[in-house]
């Protein structure tokens, strides 16, 4: 079973989604509590657990906490192997309580539109009064963006998605810039990284603006700029995203044997 609309771009030896999953996994430190989102982050967490973060604990919004990898590959968090042998099966509100109390270190969110301050839109393209496109909505994304200590955004890098201003803030980033989160009353957090199909961006601690810190192999800073809807700042020491190691690829293929999420 292969996901039809999976990214088709290929790089020798690994796929782009495999690179992105690897980058996501590297954002998790050992012993952290991770609120695992849908899709690629599922694999990112499994990869981190299987490599450098064996003590990480995974929290899933549907009511699952587990500190072991699932005994079989899963396509989604509700698959029974992800429930079997869990540490805790409970209510969404219990998971959200951990988050709201500030006990979740890092979380992952996908986005359809993002702006320079990391505000995310997964609800309405073209304004909510007469939307051109209705997207699925927040799910837990707004909660993760509001309440995790930090969150990582994973998304496709296109000019129509990286916009000066998003059409709708589903999941708050740094709002209008420094001090905004404090002003509206968000208790902590903010986006920490954006892992895209072209590179990795982080946020300036002072201006809260997105900065390109790493480009994927074969991608130039200019290419990234040309796919971004505002003048993008670039880190002085721009890095190249390290490709997945052989071990990382082995783990990804073990958990996504059909390549549904990451291709083959």
């Amino acid at each position, binding site marked *: *079973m292969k*996901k039809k*609309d999976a990214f088709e771009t290929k790089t020798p030896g690994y796929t782009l989604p495999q690179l992105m999953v690897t980058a996501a996994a590297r954002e998790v430190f050992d012993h952290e509590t991770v609120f695992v989102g*849908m899709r690629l982050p599922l694999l990112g967490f499994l990869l981190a657990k299987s490599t450098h973060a064996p003590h990480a604990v995974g929290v*899933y*919004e*549907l*009511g*699952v906490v587990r500190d072991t990898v699932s*005994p079989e590959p899963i*396509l*989604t*968090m*509700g*698959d*029974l192997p992800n*429930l*079997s*042998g869990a540490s805790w*099966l*409970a*209510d*969404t*509100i219990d998971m*959200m309580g951990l*988050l*709201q109390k500030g006990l979740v270190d890092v979380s992952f969110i996908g986005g359809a539109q993002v702006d320079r301050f990391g505000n995310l839109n997964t*609800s*309405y393209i073209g304004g*909510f009064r*007469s*939307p*051109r*496109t*209705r*997207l*699925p*909505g*927040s*799910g*837990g*994304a*707004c*909660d993760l963006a*509001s*309440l995790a200590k930090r969150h990582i955004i994973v998304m496709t890098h296109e000019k129509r998605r990286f916009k000066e201003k998003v059409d*709708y*803030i*589903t*999941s*708050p980033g740094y*709002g209008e810039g420094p001090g*905004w*989160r404090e002003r*509206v*009353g*968000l*208790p902590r957090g903010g986006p920490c990284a954006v892992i895209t199909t072209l590179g990795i961006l982080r946020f300036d601690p002072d201006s809260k603006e997105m900065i390109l810190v790493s480009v994927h192999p074969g991608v130039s800073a200019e290419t990234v700029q040309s796919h971004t809807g505002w003048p993008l700042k670039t880190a002085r020491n721009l890095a190249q995203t390290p490709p997945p190691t052989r071990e990382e690829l082995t783990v990804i293929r073990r958990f996504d044997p059909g390549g*549904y999420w990451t291709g083959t």
Partner: protein
Amino acid sequence: MDFTKRLSLSEAVSRFVQDGDSVAMGCAQETLIPFAAGHEMIRRQKKNLTLIGPISDILFDQLVGAGCVAEIRAAWIGNVITGSAYHFRRAVEEKTLRIKDHSNLTLAMALKAGAMGVPFMPTSTALGSDLYRTNPDLKTVSCPFSGVPVTAVAALTPDVAVVHVQRADIFGNSHVWGNLGVTREACLASRHVILTAEEIVDTKVITGDPNRVVVPGFRVSAVVHAPWGGHPSPVPGYYNRDHQAFIDYRNCSKTPEGFRAWRKEWVDPVDDGRTYAEILGKARRESLAIKHRRPSVPVDYGY
């Protein structure tokens, strides 16, 4: 409790789901989705429903496609492993469907408020977000002790919660296991509860382990025996998730013709007396069956 609440699926939906009702479904998110009951609503051509649930893994889209829905209050409506829900998307774009946008946490708190019998619940989520612009049930208030701003979420009290469970007795007592999502809150918040159950068991099985009960029998209006009633979503202890069915639905639901074909294959035959298990077929049932059994260690409720 010594009168039975056991009804056929058709009786239960006719009696307890009225046109215009608000209906909570899919409360455990990706698992235990009450597809059988949803499909019955399609067959009975329910109208103007308000659907309530955290995320909807294609069930809400099916009801929108069948013309049953006037409003949705949810955090996410799509197809978890493929993306968009096409009927939902079209209906919003064509303005034939009203939406109140929630996050998973605001929806959980809205149902918790309904379950607890309080008019609102506070949460720290969604502050500064545009959910406030598309959901009048969110307002910012200050904590009377600390002064910090919080989001107040108005209570939701659905007319009916439809919940798929593993086992129930005929009096409404039931066991649910696995992740629970907002199942507990939805049942306790709602005026009526319809249970569809994989198995009907003796009352002693249920009262023999009362910690597994998420809603007491006296709050339940109807119990329906519905084997495979959660398919294609996974049901812990009974069957795995049928990924292919979600992918197939994605493809079918792109066009009205495709949807009609899907409905003709999966929904309508039940009116001709075929069981869902028959429609599914033996080979597919076996492919979804539990291969690795993991029974729990019993506990003792003696005295």
